[in-house]
């Protein structure tokens, strides 16, 4: 797995090591590395074990689940997955989430990129004010806005619609995305745009044909960041999507879990959870390095 992440330090660090130190330190270092191995292995187990348990449980029958949390399934119950997909409607919730994310991710990136480009590259009165206005959005807790947001979306006849949720997702993703992309556009060279102007290109052409392609690494980072944030979003759909037909995945799972008390289909619930982490898992495996830097970028800049 991704060992190259820490290679630089691994390569340089040993130079400083035990060669300078004496024998006693050597023994101490050995104890130390043994202790750290135990500690790290323990935490790794603590993290992995619940997920492994989740996968095993998703393949058991309900009586097996209820009789012992430890046992392995006598026969693998793949049927749990088909019940989760159809009867528990996870399939529909999955597609709903895809529809919303297709709209909100495209919208977030396009709207943010346009605003960030202008904020990074042009001087005009009110520029600072607008930039800090967006930045302020990072400070405010979402739940403070929940009540008015609910009534606002209702008044706009957007309650329980995909369009409504898409617009709200975009709006709440703007502060960080604009903040990040503005910094990114500032690092791009200005000469290309100036040369294109001399060739008779319009400002629009410069943006869409030169700047946007150049900004791809930044857009990808923000795409991944917002994919995870919006895929995991729970509070906004819970309040703004009261129609069961159009539940999103995390919301649907929550209601499924709450209902288990009455319906007792634990196998399907665990299968549903496994299904819902598959997209996240794929994104993680494909983009692990970029995703880490994307998610941690904000914290490091602060």
């Amino acid at each position: 797995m991704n060992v190259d992440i820490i290679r630089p330090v691994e390569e340089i660090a040993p130079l400083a090591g035990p060669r300078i130190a004496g024998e006693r330190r050597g023994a101490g270092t050995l104890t130390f590395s043994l202790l750290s191995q135990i500690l790290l292995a323990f935490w790794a187990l603590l993290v992995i074990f619940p997920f492994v348990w989740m996968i095993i449980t998703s393949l058991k029958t309900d009586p097996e689940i209820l009789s012992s949390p430890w046992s392995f399934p006598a026969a693998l119950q793949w049927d749990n997955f088909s019940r989760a997909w159809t009867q528990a409607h996870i399939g529909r919730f999955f597609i709903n989430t895809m529809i919303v994310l297709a709209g909100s991710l495209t919208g977030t990136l396009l709207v943010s990129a346009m605003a960030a480009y202008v904020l990074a590259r042009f001087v005009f009165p009110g520029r600072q004010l607008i930039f800090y206005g967006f930045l302020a959005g990072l400070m405010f807790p979402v739940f403070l806005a929940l009540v008015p947001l609910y009534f606002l979306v209702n008044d706009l006849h957007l309650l329980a619609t995909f369009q409504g949720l898409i617009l709200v997702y975009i709006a709440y993703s703007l502060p960080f995305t604009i903040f990040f992309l503005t910094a990114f556009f500032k690092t791009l060279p200005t000469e290309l745009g100036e040369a294109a102007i001399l060739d008779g290109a319009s400002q629009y052409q410069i943006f869409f044909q030169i700047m946007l392609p150049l900004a791809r690494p930044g857009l990808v980072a923000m795409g991944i960041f917002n994919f995870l944030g919006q895929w995991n979003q729970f509070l906004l759909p819970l309040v703004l999507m009261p129609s069961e037909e159009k539940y999103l995945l995390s919301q649907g799972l929550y209601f499924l879990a709450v209902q288990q008390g009455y319906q007792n289909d634990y196998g399907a619930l665990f299968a549903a959870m496994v299904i819902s982490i598959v997209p996240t898992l794929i994104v993680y495996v494909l983009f692990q390095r970029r995703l880490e830097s994307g998610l941690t970028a904000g914290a490091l800049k602060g």
Partner: protein
Amino acid sequence: MHYHKYRLIIPFLLPAILLYGIFVVWPYAQAIYISLTSWKGVSGNRPFVGLDNYQRLWEDERFREALTRNGQLLIVLPLVTIAIALTFAALFTQGSQRVRGAGFYRVIFFFPQIIPAVIVGILWSYIYTPNVGLLNGILRAVNLEGVTRPWLTDPGTVLWAIVAVAIWSSVGFYMVIFLASMQTIPTSFYEAAILDGGNRWTSFKDITFPLIWETIRTSVIYLAIFALDFFILIVVVSGGSTTMGARRAEVAALYLYNQAFDSSRWGYASAIGVVLLVLTLLLSVGIMRVTRRETYEF
């Protein structure tokens, strides 16, 4: 070049400003106004009552209890998360000896951070389930029957059981932040420390810690805000916002949610939100001031 610049600036900024203004700024502004009304139920009637809601909040025992829990979270969540994350980050990079399998551990530790909070919550609610849950199962297996308990309804454990989940899922994230920050420290600093006879602990204390202080400070603020906003995990792990477990772990944000979407007391709920916002702002500024130190350029 900027001859016709406003023909670009205005249409490019407008969508962002409109969306942000309508769906973000306007609701926040309205929340402040709604907190000054006694608006409840389904009527559109919003009688203005001034600071009445705030007055009642001040005397509300349940709100005080909720805020006390937030106060406990505020201490425990940043302290424990940062201590664990910093320990792991230090084991990975600091000093001479590298840890075997560091890349593997890093991928694993970070993993819970990307899993939806709802899934983490449901998973742990089954781990904590009294009879068939994993945790009590483990305790029985190692003959600790006496320690087993209904973790999510016992008033003494419910909040901490849920906080443990939050720590469990955040440690990896902060570890990666600390790692990235530590890797910017030149190794020559550590070489010099070893020549001076320093050991692992002194080089951590005298080199690593001061040099990544800015990152630690940012993390404290992040986690403090997390502690004040804390509530989704409580709802999911305890199986609903109005369950007994949720009531026993009720924090301010959950109280707000229940006042709004369970009791339809929009005015009162908004007042709780405004108080929380003010506390968040004060806390951020407060932490910034208290943790200010001389920063080192290197």
